[in-house]
Structures are given as structure tokens and as C-alpha cells.
């Protein structure tokens, strides 16, 4: 018993050292970023690693607002529109598809589910050229629609929603609603959707964050400055601000990630358990 406790003490010391180091590694770059956002480029030049905030936040803000393309408020608004639309399309229609896959017995049900599983692995990026060319011909370039509408077919979300329905859904409620004369579509909207709230909440976070963070497709499709989403604005940050204005660059990055930080730290419990749900599926 004695040697085991020494062993386990050593084990715990090792584990905590590594975990605390990794934890600091996650936080520290952002800590440097937030502090440097409040410092002047001169201060950063003298001492690049800060310990305390300084008083140049307003100055850095002024530098940023002078740049043509980086407009945080506009970026937030545009990203919100795109992410909101994407969330609605992907969540609502994935629930509908998942419901069709669980509640009804139809001939093609199993083949259709196999098909969804198969296309889950296709990365959207590889069809970008064809997608772009099609949108060009339809005149949808520089519009939010091609960023939002494809979410109607989100195989991964369908998969998760189906898993959730399989575990919770019971036909009895639906049948009693049918006896009361409710139509199938209104049963879905009024009874099934509210039942799926927990699954909807988790998936909403992931779809929202994924769409908010997307750079590739928005950058390919959007060309007007005033339509740029936050990640595009960040990607243009270095070209827009004089390269040695480090304080302003740090502030620009900070502003782009603050909303995500707020979402993450208020919802972290749900986010972590949402990811872990994915691990148990098999």
C-alpha cells in the first residue's frame, strides 16, 4: 500500500503539471492578444510580452476605424445574418429529414439513410469550382444566399437529429394528435420540434460557430467590402493597417474573437457535453 501511494502521488504530480501547462498554452496567446490590444506599438516594440494592460485602447481603435475594410460592427452584423440563416436552414430541415427517417415507414428509408451516411464524408470544398461557376451563371455572386441555402442539406446534422429521435421519440403522442385531427406537418412543427429542443440547442451552437468562423467560401463568393463577414475582415487586417501598428492588429483580432469567447464560456458545459455525445455514438 505504501509504494502505491508514492506512485500515485508521482502520477498526480505529472498529470497536473502537464495539464496546467497545456491549459496555460491554450489561454496564454489570447492573454497576450488582449493585453497588447490596449498597448501602443511603441510599448510592444520595447516589451512584446505584457503583464499589465496599458491605456492605448482608444488610440488603437482610432487606427482601426480609419481602415476602409475593417469595420467590426458591420462584420458582426454580416456574420450574424449568414450564421443565423445557416442555423435556421440546417436545423429546421435536418430535423424534418430526421423525423421522416424515424417516424414513417417508407420503402426507401434505409437506402436513403445509407446514402446520407455516405455523403457525410464528402468535403464541400472540393466542389467549390463548380459551385462558384454555377452561382456566377445564376447571378448569385456577392450574395448571402449561396452561403446560407446549402445548409438545407446537412447530412451530419441529420445524423445527430436521427440519433436523438431514435432515443426519445414515441409514436403514441403522434397518434393521439392524429386522432385529434392534426395534420402531419403541424404535428412536426407543434409537437416534434419542441420535443427536440435539447438536440436543437447543442447543434445550433456548433452550426452557428462553424458558420461564423468560415472563411473559404465567403472569401470566394463575396466581393463587396460592405458585405464581408468577420473572418474576411480579419484576413484583410494586415493588408489594411500599416504593418507595424501591432497594437491595432491585436485589437482587430481581439474584436473578432470576443463574441466566440462569450458564447464559449457561457455555454461551455453544453458545448463539451455536445461533443462528447458524438463520441458515444458507436
Amino acid at each position, binding site marked *: 500500500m505504501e509504494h502505491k501511494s508514492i506512485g500515485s502521488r508521482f*502520477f*498526480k504530480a505529472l498529470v497536473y503539471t502537464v*495539464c496546467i501547462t*497545456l*491549459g496555460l498554452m*491554450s489561454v496564454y496567446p*489570447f492573454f497576450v492578444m488582449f493585453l497588447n490590444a490596449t498597448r501602443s506599438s511603441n510599448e*510592444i*516594440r520595447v516589451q*512584446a*510580452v505584457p503583464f499589465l494592460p496599458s491605456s492605448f485602447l482608444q488610440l488603437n481603435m482610432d487606427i482601426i476605424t480609419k481602415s476602409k475594410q475593417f469595420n467590426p460592427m458591420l462584420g458582426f452584423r454580416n456574420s450574424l445574418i449568414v450564421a443565423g440563416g445557416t442555423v435556421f436552414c440546417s436545423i429546421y*430541415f435536418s430535423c*424534418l*429529414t430526421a423525423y421522416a427517417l424515424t*417516424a*414513417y*415507414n*417508407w*420503402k426507401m*428509408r434505409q437506402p*436513403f439513410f445509407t446514402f446520407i451516411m455516405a455523403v457525410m*464524408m*464528402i*468535403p*464541400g470544398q*472540393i*466542389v*467549390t*469550382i*463548380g*459551385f*462558384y*461557376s454555377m452561382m456566377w*451563371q445564376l447571378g448569385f455572386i456577392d450574395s448571402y444566399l*449561396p452561403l446560407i*441555402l*446549402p445548409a*438545407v*442539406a446537412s447530412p451530419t446534422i441529420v445524423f445527430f437529429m436521427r440519433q436523438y429521435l431514435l432515443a426519445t421519440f414515441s*409514436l403514441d403522442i403522434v397518434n393521439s394528435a*392524429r386522432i385529434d385531427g392534426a395534420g402531419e406537418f403541424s404535428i*412536426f412543427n407543434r409537437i416534434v420540434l419542441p420535443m427536440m429542443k435539447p438536440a436543437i440547442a447543442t447543434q445550433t451552437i456548433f452550426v452557428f*460557430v462553424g458558420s461564423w*468562423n468560415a*472563411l*473559404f467560401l465567403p472569401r*470566394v463568393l463575396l466581393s463587396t467590402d460592405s458585405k464581408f463577414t468577420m*473572418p474576411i475582415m*480579419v484576413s484583410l487586417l494586415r493588408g489594411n493597417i500599416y504593418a507595424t501598428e501591432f497594437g491595432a492588429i491585436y485589437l482587430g*483580432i481581439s474584436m473578432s*474573437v470576443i463574441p466566440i*469567447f462569450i458564447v464559449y464560456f457561457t455555454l461551455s458545459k453544453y458545448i*463539451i457535453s455536445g*461533443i*462528447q*455525445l*458524438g*463520441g*458515444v455514438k*458507436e
Partner: protein
Amino acid sequence: MEKRIKGVSYAKYGYIFCIPFVLGFSLFMLYPLVHTIVISFSNYEGASRYLSGRFSVLDNPLANYTRLITENRLFWTSLSNTLKIWIINFIPQIVLALVLTAWFTNRRNKIRGKGLFKVLFYMPNIITAGSIAILFSALFSFPIGPVNYLLELIGVREAPINFTISLSASQYIVAFIQFWMWYGYTMLILTSGVLGLNPEIFEVSEIDGANGIQQFFFITLPNLKTILLYMLVTSIVGGLTMFDIPMLFNDGGPDSATTTLSIFIYRQAFSGSFLLNRAAAASMLAFILIAVLSVGVFYLLRDKDAARLKKEEKALRRALEAERRAG
């Protein structure tokens, strides 16, 4: 009987409710896929064709592919960069994630603060990748960036290092950012996989006198194979389409050292000479590569795995049965 009430068949609603998905998929995935394939066989290049949107299939439809494969050095460079960056990020990532999983699911020494650690380890994954890339390029800036400052502080280096002009340093930094962003996610999936296992197999092995390390290698790992397979495949897909970090960290440079396949495709199509046909061909080659690698991984690991799992399960059930009878 369940699909009929009073003789009404509800089966048609199954089809009706799937219409939006099928429409969305055909319009935004299937058609673009076919269109990309057609473009890859065509002469769709140059500003004027790009603007008019008119193009035709080449006499030799495979010309774009052969030109990419035989003449285009940058294509091969970007492919090898992508694979290299993926490997130097994936191997340490999966090793660290497995170690953390073993620690966090250790049954004898319970770790405190697991919840907090999980939140911290996962955090970089959820932050905008583009912002992270710009942040790291500021952190690694020369000659006065924070990293250079810290290296000087602990006395590791004499003169400031210009990370952004070193080919291998840039590749390692990009790989590090990927690693740093993804190990937490990998760990979360693996931990939940372990927690999903039947605790009885651990209890039985403890009675048999297995220690933590033996348990990890002989029970946890074999049982995690399906999840590891899933991680491997999703990581291959993600790694081969990597764009944001290398693009924004150092613009695919220096000297194309961090130009990945996606950056190559993006540049072919949307900068300079609008080689949409070449970009489409490169996309299809990437698709084929992803498909071959994923199917290969599944094929290599799955069948053997399923058979062995079944055997193990049987052995375990027998052991449990014997245990019950003995006790």
C-alpha cells in the same frame, strides 16, 4: 400495423419531408460536383471565358489532369506540403490525446478539475481559425514579437529568429497551430468513447490484477478502434482541405512552403489567370485521394477489427459468466 391508422397510410410523408434535403443536396452538392468534373475536362480558363461563363470540353478531356500531374511542380509541392503538415500535426495530436484520455479515465487516481481542463483544452478549436492564424503570425513576428522576446528571456537564442522566412519553421508552426487547435477535440471524443464502454470489463481486469498501463493497452485501446478510425478519417479529410491557417499565417509562404492543396486550388482559380479548369482538376484529384485514403483506412482496419471485437466480446462474456458462477 404502426404505419396505418384507420386505413390511412402515412408513408408518403416520409418522402415529402425529405424533399427539401434532396433538393438542397442535388442543387448545392450534386450539381456542383458534376459541374466541377465537367469543368475539369474543359477549356474554362482566362479572364474572358471566366467573365462570359462560356466554355467547352477539350478534345483531349484529360489534358488538365495530365498537365497537372506531369508539368506542374507547384501542384506536387502543395500536395507534399499538405501531407507533411498533416502528419506532423496528427501524430503528436493523437498521442497526446490518448495519454490525456488514459489519465482522465484512470479509475484509481481520480484527477480533479477535469471539467476545467476539458474546457481549456477544447477552447482553441472553437475560435475563428483565421483570427488564430493572424494572431500567431503577430506572436511570431520578427524581430520583436512575443515569441522572440520569450526565447530571449529564457536565454535560448542569441539573435532574434525570423520564423516567417524559414521554410521548415513555417511548416512546423502551421502544424503546431493545427495540433494546438485539435488535440482537445480528439481527447474529448476519445474520453467519451472510454466512458461509453462497459465498466464491467475494467472491473474484471482489475480483479485479474491488471495495472493501469495494461488496462489501457489491452482493454481501452482495442475497444477504441472504431473511434480512432473515425478520428483518422475525419482528420484526413480536414487535413487535406486545410486552408485558413496556412493562408493567413504566412500567405502560403515562404517560397510556397505552406501552400496546401486548397491554397493551390484557390490561387489557380481566383487569382491571376483564372485557371478554373486546372483548379477543378486539382479538386477532383484531391477528392480521389481523400476517397482512396478513407476507404483504404476503413478497409484495412474495419473487418479485422469487427471480427476481433466479436471474439473479445465472446471471451469477455464467457469470463463474466465464469466469474458469476464462481462468485
